[in-house]
């Protein structure tokens, strides 16, 4: 036990020495007492002219932009429209443009941002509803177009007495796992330059999901998945601008998925017979 005490004492000392601004080892943190929160306000249904409202927010070290917005909503102006739920970057609700770049509000600490003003605007490339809230119907529709489910005649278990799984080694899983991190937050869709003008382009989220299911050894739709995205406004409208992967908060790297899928369409990458086998139930 003594070892642990020593370790803790040591760490505490280290912590005390650590400059407050260095606690987060990925990005420099800045600490301040107050920030100004600029919030984009408009009710599109009412044809409101967009305006920016300023709120003074007292900050604490751990505060996120979502915390700041909810503070404003609770105590300064309760009519701010905002979408949020999990506050831990797993539901994908709170995407918005923070200082011009698409980010998750609950995943952006105020201390990571420079300057004393923070500007929150709704995601672009999504139809606007009100204030920070945008309409995701088309985005979800694109996802659905990719047939994002396992297609396999054995997908539904018919004989409940003979239960068994498809065999997949950890390596098989790693081939698609990264792409199933996607929380459908839409940040990539908002950042992509093609989506900015092409209304029929499925966007990085949907295309990387097509790869996710393509690369899954349990799925047997292989070539049909490739053909489905090979249209005029399909996968070729991605020019590897990489902005999707840049803004993705979950490390999905949609750009990678898209390029890999394209490799299969072009025949750069062989599509060997990859269907997983059902384990013999014992």
């Amino acid at each position, binding site marked *: *036990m003594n070892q*642990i*005490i*020593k*370790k*803790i004492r040591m*760490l505490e000392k280290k*912590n005390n020495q650590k400059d407050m601004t260095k606690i987060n*080892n990925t990005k420099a943190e800045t600490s301040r007492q107050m920030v100004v929160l600029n919030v984009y306000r408009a009710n599109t*249904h*009412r044809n409101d002219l967009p305006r920016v409202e300023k709120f003074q927010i007292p900050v604490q*070290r*751990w505060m996120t932009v979502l915390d700041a917005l909810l503070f404003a*909503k*609770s*105590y300064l102006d*309760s*009519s701010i*429209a905002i*979408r949020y*739920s*999990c*506050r*831990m970057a*797993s*539901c*994908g*609700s709170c995407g918005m443009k923070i200082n011009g770049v698409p980010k998750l509000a609950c*995943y952006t600490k105020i201390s990571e941002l420079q300057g004393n003003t923070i500007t929150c605007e709704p995601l672009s490339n999504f139809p606007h*509803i009100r204030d920070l*809230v945008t*309409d*995701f*119907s088309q985005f979800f529709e694109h996802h*659905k177009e990719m047939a*994002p*489910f*396992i297609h*396999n005649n054995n*997908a*539904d*278990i018919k004989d*409940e007495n003979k*239960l*068994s*799984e*498809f*065999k*997949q*080694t*950890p390596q*098989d*899983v790693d081939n698609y796992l990264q792409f*199933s*991190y996607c*929380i*459908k937050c839409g940040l990539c869709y908002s950042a992509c330059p093609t989506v900015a003008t092409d209304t029929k382009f499925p966007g990085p989220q949907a295309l990387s999901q097509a790869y996710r299911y393509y690369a899954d050894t*349990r799925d047997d739709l292989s070539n049909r998945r490739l053909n489905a995205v090979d249209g005029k406004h399909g996968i070729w409208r991605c020019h590897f601008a990489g902005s999707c992967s840049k803004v993705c908060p979950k490390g999905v790297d949609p750009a990678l998925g898209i390029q890999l899928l394209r490799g299969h369409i072009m025949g750069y990458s062989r599509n060997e017979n990859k269907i997983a086998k059902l*384990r013999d139930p*014992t």
Partner: protein
Amino acid sequence: MADTISHDLIIIGSGLAGLRAAISAASTHDSLNIAVVAKVQVMRSHSVSAEGGTAAVIFEEEGDNKESHIYDTIKGSDFLADQDVAELLVRSMPFEIYQLEHWGMPWSRRENGRIDQRKFGGYSFPRATYAQDKVGFYEMQTLYDTCLKYDNIHFYNEWFCTSILSDAKDFRGVTAIEMKSGDFVKFKAPAGIICTGGAGRIYSFSTYAYSSTPDGLDMAYRAGLALKDMEFVQFHPTGILPSGILITEGARGEGGYLINNQGERFMKKYAPTKLELASRDVVSRAMMREIQEGRGFKHESGVDCLKIDLSHLGEDNIKKRLAGIREIGIKFSGIDVIEEPIEIRPVCHYMMGGIHTNINGATEMTGLWAAGEAACNSLHGANRLGANSTSECLVWGRITGRLAAEYAVDHPSVSSISQHQVIEEEKRIYDGLFRSRGQVNPYEIRKELTDTMDAKAHIFRNEKDLAEGLKKVRHLKQQAWKHVDDHAKEYNTNFINVMEIDSMLRTAEIVLAGAFNRRESRGAHARTDYPNRDDINFLKHTIGYLTTQEPKMSWHPVTFTRYAPMERKY
């Protein structure tokens, strides 16, 4: 007058339970027209936050067996679980694991390609099936994506249900507000399933999503249905400060230590054999003791806490199996768990209670079922074991989905719904809340309410605190807080928040009332003034109905099959 939308089956809530029910119903009858209505976009339900695992017996050839899972569940519940229900869960679970696997779930695998399992608190065998530490997220994704296969499932993203419509004791539909447009509409359906999840936001320090408010429970409660065992609120040992975000039990399952400011693994005093992997109520109580006896740390926000140490697990292991935890630590606490212990504190995590149902998830209203955390089919009794809740959602999602679908096929068209109820409901929400002229800021009321719950109905309870809590909550209810500043129709989250706060007040009251009446300590309910379990007087479920005055409380028997109550030791 409100528009009407007709369906054959309406599922309220789109967490694990709701989506599983939708698939189950859709595959029972492909002609059924199914609606999934949720106040969030459907794939954003709170279930995405579940981290650690889903319990099932799948390695019988390696020594696990169903009997043991059943017993662990009942023992975990402090013998308040209905034993036939626990048995149904355990027998149905292996199927769910494999079914999810066939639908694309990225379960973590062993080298030989088989599904892997990890240790979890309160179990005698490692049987938490996991997918890294994002189990709930992957399950939600798998179910949502699979739902897209069915053309007869219609999603209603961001529709807030406000009340249940019924005819005598028959379900007729619900009223709802489409948030995008602000329109008030009624859904008409012969069958319904409530899957609105837990209510943990009635506490301030809570692992729950902001959307986990008790409006679903309250809807049922207002429709005259009973809420059962509401006093049993689970406190999870490890929530980080100050946000309450969860460090999964999987972190202890993988071998993490809980330590106090003496650097001591204090759990050896409280649960000598299972240590950190005793059931959650035991661990949380031990932690509160440590803190009360002055062996806690002080977090910079001023709150007392303890620490969990994972650093000895090694970088590789953490990155592979607890990547999400590491991310949460770095992002929200500024601590990399690979390097140093992280501050944690017991945190409100699960409601064992809910809408009173039978073993099949049927409520007291014909045509209405409830599943998932919103339901109380008495699986968890006085304390739930970790990883059993996602299991419950899957199993009862499937069961209720099938039963409701069959019912809907037999009762195709609904006779017209009572306009009277719709008008009453419009009055309640629009005249009573939206246009009401309160002066007190509703968000202040919410803060006071949740702080009261944290202070008065926490892990250790006593008569005085509970009485004060009840008084306070009733006082808050009386205050002139009912008003909505935001007068727009479209996406009015202020209005939604006010309706949520309204339901929170009523639900908090019944939690406190139940806790007040239960003069014993059982599972998660620990009374300092009645420190022992009292099987003679309280081996029964609490039941509460809404009245115009105080809730009407009564009792309901526990079902026993094979296991006699005995003292719990870990």
